[in-house]
């Protein structure tokens, strides 16, 4: 633009200079020349203006085209960004819909995204030692043992159906099924369970094996059933403020673990009510209080399968903390007719303090198959146990979780708990009128125990305890249990390493 104007000025200046040099030309010629020059200048100006307009138009066209492209690109970028955003949302949604797998202190858990299907693998391994003192009459009862070796398979199907399967590989007789049941959970307060599981009776027996205070349960548990096959309606109301269970079972003798099949005409009825009235209250000192009562009843007991277990001996009978038989029925004694049990029970947990107690009655009809004599025996037992966690953790019926799991590199040692227990079991004296031998079997046993439990973490526990049991009666001649057991008090030192996950 500036160049065009400079060119015009130069041209005009040259023309004027030429005119001054040719001063002798005529006026007419000069006027026509001037007019011609003006026309040339106008023509040139128009050309310049046209060029300028063309240039502006070109610039505008370029600007418009660029604007459109920018807008188009902007939309494309926005669409790409939004698609990326939607992809991320879809990925999050897909992750939520994907099955979940977790491995941790609670075991191996595989779950569908909606948790309607859950499979969980837990395990329990208990390696014990028992060392008896001052047991001159008994030989070969010390040593190490695998007390429990149990893989535990449990889970949920279709949201409301639970299952549990627990074999135990510890028994020398071979693998044994302990729990094998299905459970329909309509609501927490209304559930139906069928299969093989613990009869709802003894409080200590119902506590999970991983959480019991000592290596072995007390004398009171001698009088309650272990696991049985049956059907149970049960539930926890208001989050466990009140729990109930009512079931029909094949029926087993005291402390018996049922076989997988038992065909007989009579069944055993069992029921339990347990209340934790302050569980949901603001009274923290009473939140851990629970009281209840449980009972069983069976009319048609018969044979030896409805008598107590043969643990620690060869005949049905009752055992000490050291799992030695201190009472045995005679070989000619069988169960006969009615057998009922009743067990008032309760516990109290507050901070590191724990207290658990129960009373057990087991009334059993018996018959001497040789003489035909019959009797109805009233056997009773009770126990009370307490504990204190030295490291400040809260005690509970469901175990102890260390605040500072074992990690010596960082000065953490886990949780330590001291525990003590006293228990008694009293056999009806009528049992010795032809159904048991008073010379060899004790008519009563009294046991106290004390121990130290070390919870390294949620999964590993080590404990040691000492148990002292005295007997009333028995101690006569004989080379097998119960004579050799009741001949002197039982003093046994236990240790255990437990891995539970």
């Amino acid at each position, binding site marked *: 633009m500036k160049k065009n104007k400079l060119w015009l000025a130069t041209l005009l200046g040259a023309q004027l200079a030429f005119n001054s040099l040719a001063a002798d030309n005529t006026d007419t010629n000069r006027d026509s020349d001037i007019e011609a020059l003006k026309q040339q200048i106008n023509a040139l100006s128009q050309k310049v203006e046209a060029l300028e307009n063309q240039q502006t138009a070109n610039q505008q066209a370029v600007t418009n085209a660029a604007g459109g492209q920018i807008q188009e690109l902007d939309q494309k970028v926005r*669409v790409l960004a939004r698609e990326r*955003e*939607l992809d991320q949302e879809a990925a999050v949604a897909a992750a939520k819909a994907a099955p979940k797998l977790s491995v941790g202190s609670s075991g191996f858990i595989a779950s569908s995204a909606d948790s309607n299907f859950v499979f969980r693998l837990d395990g329990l391994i208990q390696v014990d030692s028992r060392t008896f003192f001052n047991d001159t009459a008994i030989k070969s009862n010390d040593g190490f043992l695998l007390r429990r070796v149990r893989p535990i398979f449990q889970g949920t199907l279709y949201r409301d159906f639970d299952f549990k399967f627990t074999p135990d590989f510890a028994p020398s007789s071979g693998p044994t099924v302990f729990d094998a049941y299905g459970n329909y959970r309509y609501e927490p307060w*209304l559930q139906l369970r069928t299969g093989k599981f613990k009869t709802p009776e003894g409080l200590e027996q119902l506590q999970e094996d991983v959480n019991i205070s000592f290596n072995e349960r007390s004398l009171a548990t001698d009088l309650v059933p272990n696991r049985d096959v049956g059907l149970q309606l049960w539930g926890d109301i208001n989050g466990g403020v009140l729990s109930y269970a009512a079931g029909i079972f094949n029926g087993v003798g005291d402390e018996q673990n049922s076989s997988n099949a038992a065909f007989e005409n009579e069944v055993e009825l069992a029921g339990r009510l347990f209340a934790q009235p302050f569980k949901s209250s603001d009274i923290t000192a009473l939140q851990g209080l629970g009281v209840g009562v449980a009972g069983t*009843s069976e009319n048609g007991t018969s044979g030896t399968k409805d008598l107590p277990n043969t643990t620690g001996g060869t005949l049905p009978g009752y055992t000490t903390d050291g799992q030695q038989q201190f009472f045995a029925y005679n070989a000619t004694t069988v169960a006969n007719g009615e057998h009922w049990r009743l067990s008032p029970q309760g516990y109290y947990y507050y901070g590191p303090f724990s207290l658990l107690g129960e009373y057990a009655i087991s009334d059993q009809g018996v018959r001497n198959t040789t003489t035909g004599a019959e009797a109805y025996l009233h056997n009773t037992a009770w126990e009370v146990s307490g504990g204190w966690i030295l490291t400040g953790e809260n005690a509970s019926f469901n175990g102890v979780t260390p605040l500072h799991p074992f990690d010596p590199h960082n000065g953490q040692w886990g949780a330590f708990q001291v525990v003590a227990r006293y228990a008694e079991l009293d056999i009806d004296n009528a049992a010795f009128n032809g159904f048991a031998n008073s010379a060899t079997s004790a008519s009563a046993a009294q046991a106290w125990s004390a121990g130290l439990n070390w919870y390294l973490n949620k999964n590993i526990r080590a404990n040691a305890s000492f148990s002292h049991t005295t007997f009333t009666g028995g101690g006569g001649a004989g080379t097998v249990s119960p004579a050799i057991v009741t001949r002197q008090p039982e003093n046994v030192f236990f240790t255990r390493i437990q891995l539970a996950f």
Partner: protein
Amino acid sequence: MKTLLKILLVLAFAGASHAKEIKLLNVSYDPTRELYTEYNAAFTKYWKGKTGDDVNVSQSHGGSGKQAQSVINGLEADVVTLALAYDIDAIAQQAKLLSADWQKRLPNNSTPYTSTIVFLVRKGNPKGIKDWDDVVKKGVSVVVPNPKTSGGARWAYLAAYAYALEKNGHNDAAARDFIRKLYKNVPVLDSGARGSTVTFAQRGIGDVLLAWENEAHLALQEFGADKFDIVTPSLSILAEPPVAVVDKNVKRHGTKEVAKAYLDYLYSDEGQEIAAKNFYRPRNETIAAKYAANFNQVKLVSIDQEFGGWAKAQQTHFADGGVFDQIFQPQN
């Protein structure tokens, strides 16, 4: 001993009959969040006054088809308030959670309010979009959710299809071509109506949003009337979002009575007022007249008349291999 066991059982079941805290879950479609937030507060107050009980209503929102599938898969809805009857039919047929005649239980085919599909355009309507023909023009970018997952998208699709049928003398091939052009202009498909509103209003994508009428009004309220305009096309569809109690779930939860009352109350004057205030067209004529200014006049066609009902429309257009699958080509 047996007496003792009986006493234990009686005591146990006496304890089991305690009162439960009343909780309801309303599984709904995408744009009803605001409607049910306001309605739940009103119903809670009403129910407290009537029975003395507290009721806590939870809401779940998403694309109507996705929500129905969630209920089929186990989401414990006490009531469903979805975008279209087909989605509740699917729950009845596939999961058997309610009877097939659920739509006869409440007035107006269990649809306490209606709605339709309108256009939301940018302020000043720079692309000059007045009717469906403008939406399919080359160079117009259209935002609408995926009809496979969104009830609102299915209504929008059918509204456009109905317009094309009417314009072309019910020539189905021409209508399909019209729909093909429309979806060729769609740069991104969200799974639900609320997602599409975000795409259009917040992410600045597109020239026009095919929206529920209530969602378009909500966008004006939320993002400012100086940013968008609502354009009502010459023809649209009568959208009837239905409601139903999920029988098996309420039976299990013990919430049958309160769930039924919850839906009944949608037909009350207060329920209808709340619907109208949230730009849903109320069934109650008096209240509809009171809020007439909220709703532009538009010729509405029904799905029964134009498409032979939802079952047929679903099978023809939205089932796998249906018309939508045939005409839609993702742009990337």
